[in-house]
């Protein structure tokens, strides 16, 4: 055993330097050179240079004039991007049903005339608690409410939503989706 101790120690040191220092430093250097925006969190900025959040990190919205995103299970407040978390509620847990019930009620209270069934992603918490997207169905469900609150024509708003709807990547990967923060930023920019 002792004869293996010395090589073991030296190999651990060598690989700590190679894979723990050289490799991450190389990736960091190349990443900052080739993709500086993505490597630093894909932050967006307004025309006057102020930061407006990350295109990949959702934000909480509760006002009737904004599109709402996925419910978030992060604590102590939703969309806490410093502590990602899902709800981990099981499908037979009564707490899950209670939470969904409350979310359906909140959506209906904000838009009493809307009798449509609620798209499921709008009332279930995302995996990360930071999901930046909702389904196109969830955007369509909220369209009338936002249009009313903003005194916009539904037609015009539908166009704006369509502009912010991403299809499947390369036409095949993943699911179609709407980036909620970017859509809401565009809404604010209309005025």
């Amino acid at each position, binding site marked *: *055993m002792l004869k293996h101790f010395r090589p073991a120690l030296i190999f651990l040191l060598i690989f700590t330097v190679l894979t723990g220092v050289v490799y991450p430093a190389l*990736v960091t250097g190349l990443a900052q050179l080739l993709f500086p925006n993505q490597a630093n969190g894909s932050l967006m900025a307004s025309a006057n240079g102020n930061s407006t959040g990350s295109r990949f990190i959702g934000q909480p*919205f509760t006002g009737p004039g904004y599109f709402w995103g996925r419910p978030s299970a992060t604590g102590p407040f939703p969309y806490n991007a410093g502590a*990602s978390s899902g709800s981990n509620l099981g*499908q037979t847990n009564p707490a899950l049903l209670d939470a969904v019930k409350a979310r359906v009620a909140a959506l209906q209270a904000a838009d009493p005339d809307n009798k449509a069934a609620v798209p*499921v992603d709008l009332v279930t918490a995302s995996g990360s608690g*930071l999901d930046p997207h909702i389904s196109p*169905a969830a955007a369509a469900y909220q369209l009338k409410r936002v249009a009313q609150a903003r005194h916009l024509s539904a037609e015009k708003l539908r166009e704006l939503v369509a502009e912010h709807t991403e299809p499947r990547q390369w036409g095949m990967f993943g699911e179609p989706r709407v980036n909620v923060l970017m859509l809401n930023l565009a809404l604010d920019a209309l005025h």
Partner: protein
Amino acid sequence: MTSNSFFQVGLYVVTLLVLAKPLGWYMARVYEGEPVGLSRILAPLEGLIYRLAGVDLKHEMRWTDYAIAMLVFNLLGFLALFALQCLQAGLPLNPQNLPAVSPDSSFNTAVSFATNTNWQAYSGEVTMSYLTQMLGLTVQNFVSAAAGMATLVALIRGFTRRKADIIGNFWVDMTRSTLYILMPLSLVLALVLVGQGVVQTLKPYQSVPLLEAVSYEQAKLGADGVALQDANGKPVMEAVQTTQQVIAMGPAASQVAIKQLGTNGGGFFNVNSAHPLENPTPLSNFLEMLAILLIPAALCHTFGVMVGDTRQGWAILAAMTLVLVALILVEVPAEQSGNPALSALGVDQSANKAQSGGNTEGKETRFGITNSAVWAVVTTAASNGSVNAMHDSFTPIGGLVPMWLMQLGEVIFGGVGSGLYGMIMFAIVAVFVSGLMIGRTPEYLGKKIEAFEMKMAAITILIPPLMVLGGSAVAVMVDVGKAAVFNPGAHGFSEILYAFSSAGNNNGSAFGGLSANTPFYNVMLGIAMLFSRYWLAVPVLAIAGSLAAKKVIPFGPGTLPTHTPLFVMLLIGTVLMVGALTFIPALALGPVVEQLHLLGVGPAKG
């Protein structure tokens, strides 16, 4: 399943199988010491490493030396990672000033990463400094994978050598795995992932303004920093408003790449690959998922090339692929079917052009049902354990499939190296069983399988179930075990069973509701991980040594061919039979009962 579902699944499986051949061939050349394209750059570095360590490239080891070298190397790696976590508060590259990790959590995490399990009882972004992530976790991501690959290569040499007492040099096999295979692939994958939006920076966490301020309640702290309590002993809450969002950052891409390629699975952030900055787009998701099974699939071909009969490798790959695809076809519809109780609340769970529908609790919109369900199968078929959706919130059947895949012993692809050596153990059992049936001495690849090999193979197959069922049994009998459960009823038992299935097979995924960061679970699961890694690797090396010493028997009329569809079925049958007989009673108490409750049978709903 929608037609797009079938398309995405098909594209994934075909891409994986297409890539297996060239990579498998490349790895065989690397392990046989033949020159490859990268040799021009890496050979001088490789030579320098051996000189520094005083290792002779040509000096091969007996199986006992090989095993001891691996164990000593792993022990030192464990100690280094343990120390790094305990000391991180005083070390550099800790921009968020994170405190030292507790000793029991450090023990659990150090074991977890050294054994290629990457079970995580901690939340990455609130626990680990950048230094710990890079110098500790990333390093073990590489070397634990390399140690698994080295063990496999030693076993393969056991089949190819005749009347030999040496099976290779552990240091050489490990160095080549890291330098020629894991590092180049990781570098390329990491950069592509950054291009898609995975962060890679040493800057501290970034603060950005919220478009709409958010109000919430938090416990009020006294002047001494301790939460205040009212007369009834309840915490005093205060209303707070925040207009800022702090976004966790870090050198994530470099770790995410190797976490997938090395079947490690430890997330940089708490929610692993569900985190938008760890897996931002459907393309990054496809590539990460491909990386999970890439090396385990390709190693099957490496095996075929090295034993001089590529059909042997394809037969094993076929067995793995058939089980994988069959379980994907169970998993996706299970998650797509959603939760009947939600439909009653006026929720639309149907799949259509505008939404993926199904059970979206704990899933990300960009991945939808298909990519979350396929990932769950892939990550537990391999001993990867990274997640892109919260398995705890899956439907009962959707949770049963990943749990059972782990319980099969992580041999359906499994870990890099460890998956294939585990599958070869089952192949040995399969030829032994068929040998009994036809009354011939069992042989595999020209080597006689005798009592010693069977005993060792039996150990490797029996240790994980012992850890899983024994550990779960202890946990449900003690209060500290039960107190950690989050969801009520049968699902709570599933959380415990899942945790021990994961640790006891070196997978690392979790039903995350279980509060596993307690001294009880940190120690119990740590022990399960240690046994399941080394009580498998050492017997495998013992078989390698024993086989290498035997002569090769020529293929005769009485030999069972091990490359035919018949053998593929026999191998699948052996794996499924052992997995089913061992675990059906436990699964019946967890996910099966829960599925009946979900469908409204029995005294559920509260």
